[in-house]
């Protein structure tokens, strides 16, 4: 058993089998990348892990805990954070407020003490802010603190989503296509950040990616999916030379 295990997951939408008996195992402190053509079932897998979709079969174990026994809002409490392929930011809130929501699971006050803004609420607000500032410095977001999300360029929004996930202080980070829509320079920065997330913050990263040169640069191991099935799993150089994978990507 590894640190994060996905065992025999099957998901069917009506007649469509988005995932079919998918299993893999991620080690602590590695960057594990999932690749595959459009519609392969990659995002569906993330949605199973974050308890948005209920699988027909299989289980998910993280750090000894059975994830499928949890409710969607309890996932972040066991240390799993994620980003979304199509950005799910709080559009009308500022960057700072978005990141502070990443600290929601550390909230200790009841709504009554919030309503009177008692001293311990204020104290906790300062502490959460301090933590969020670390993330802001880490991802260079200093200029955007007070900007509402709807006024930000796309690249910065993606960065804010990553920052928001990091604000929860996760042990496992799920990134759904973090480089899509970024410029070349932004992608290079992202590569460094993801490596730092692993090496400096000791967070295990599972990411979905399409950009193969980026994938090969940052990944420790790769899993290839196609039509909901595992095609191959291995080190970047193994996947690069795998005949099945090549065939799936060339469309035969």
């Amino acid at each position, binding site marked *: 058993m590894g640190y994060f295990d996905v065992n025999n997951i099957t998901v069917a939408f009506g007649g469509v089998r988005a995932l079919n008996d998918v299993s893999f195992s991620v080690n602590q402190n590695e960057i594990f990348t999932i690749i595959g053509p459009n519609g392969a079932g990659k995002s569906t897998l993330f949605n199973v892990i974050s308890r948005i979709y209920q699988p027909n079969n299989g289980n998910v174990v993280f750090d000894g805990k059975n994830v499928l026994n949890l409710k969607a809002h309890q996932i972040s409490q066991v240390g799993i954070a994620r980003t979304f392929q199509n950005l799910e930011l*709080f559009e*009308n809130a500022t960057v700072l*407020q978005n990141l502070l929501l990443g600290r*929601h699971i550390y909230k200790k006050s009841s*709504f009554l003490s919030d309503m009177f803004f008692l001293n311990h609420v204020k104290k906790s607000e300062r502490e959460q802010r301090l933590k969020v500032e670390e993330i802001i410095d880490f991802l260079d977001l200093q200029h955007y603190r007070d900007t509402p999300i709807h006024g930000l360029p*796309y690249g910065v929004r993606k960065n804010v989503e990553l920052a928001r996930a990091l604000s*929860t202080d996760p042990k496992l980070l799920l990134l759904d296509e973090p480089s899509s829509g970024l410029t070349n320079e932004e992608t290079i920065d992202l590569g460094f950040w993801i490596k730092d997330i692993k090496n400096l913050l000791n967070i295990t990263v599972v990411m979905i990616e399409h950009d193969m040169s980026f994938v090969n640069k940052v990944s420790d191991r790769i899993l290839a999916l196609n039509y909901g099935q595992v095609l191959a799993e291995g080190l970047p150089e193994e996947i690069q030379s795998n005949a099945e994978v090549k065939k799936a990507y060339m469309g035969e």
Partner: protein
Amino acid sequence: MRFIFKTNYDQDINIVRHNGDRISYGLLVAAMIIIPFFIDDFYLGELSYVFILAIAGIGLMILSGYTGLASLGHAAFLGVGAYTHAFLLTNGIPFYYSIIIAVVVSFFVGAAIGFPILRLTGMYLAIATLAFGFIAEHIFIRWEHFTGGNRGMVVPTPEFGGISFYDSATFYYVCLISLIASMFAAINILRSPTGRAFVAIRDSEIAAQSLGVNIARYKALSFAISAGFTGLAGALLAHYIGYLAPDIFNIFFSLTLLLLIVVGGMGSLHGTIYGAIFVGSLPQMIAIGRDYLPSSIGSQPGLEPLLFGLILVLFILYEPLGIYGRWLKIKLFFEMFPTYKKQTFKKQKTFTKSDRV
């Protein structure tokens, strides 16, 4: 333009951001305190009514403007607050306890209604709250022991150290204090984790959930808090009217509250004040307008609801940010002059969001 240099995190946490604001809000409150010495009882009563509307507006604003949940039956909570308060006063409970109990009862009724109803979204939620409004009105009619049914119910007039509530200045101050307290409570909720969770639910339920926000719980909480504020407004309204009858708390009153927050500006507490002033003075303006209309139109009975509906639609179409949004634009125009760009307030749509998660 004013640039604020921040040197301390508390500047983002505190209610007032800088001294300018402190002075202008201070002056406003001071003016409100001395006003009873300058205007006559009729206008004092009108002003008290505007304050009551504003408190109810704060309630609905938290639910709709900040949590993104519609309610077309909020007058029911005005009723719950009003009847509870009047019933307790009739049975000899002192004013202070009575009004607090009225708020608490409204809060729990809100929570009880909120839990089942809030599984619904959008149109279905709107219809369910509408139905709730009708049902509540019927309960007010049928539960005669508690409400006096269609015969109505006299609201007792408490005294403060020998000064009767009928004294309009006394009532005015009670309303003013209630409004200020409500404003502070609402601001505190919104600047704390609870309020942030509301906003998160409004903007993206799926992301809120992934960050640990228990959606069902916070929606019900928002509904309950909203009902609590509205119940407070209801209790004060009972004194303003003096005599409770079930049809006061009808769908038209619910729509009035909706009009209030839309006209004032969705998602802003300032907006509740602007909206309350607008909605509070609208019947007067309509009455004046009637005199100038040909009598065939002016004497039609359905004129008010029609106009309310029309204004609601026009605001949603042409001024979605409400009066407060318009004011911000005007303010910015002067601050930026002559470099104001029309695009400043246009929402950028840099990418299209697909339905898939």
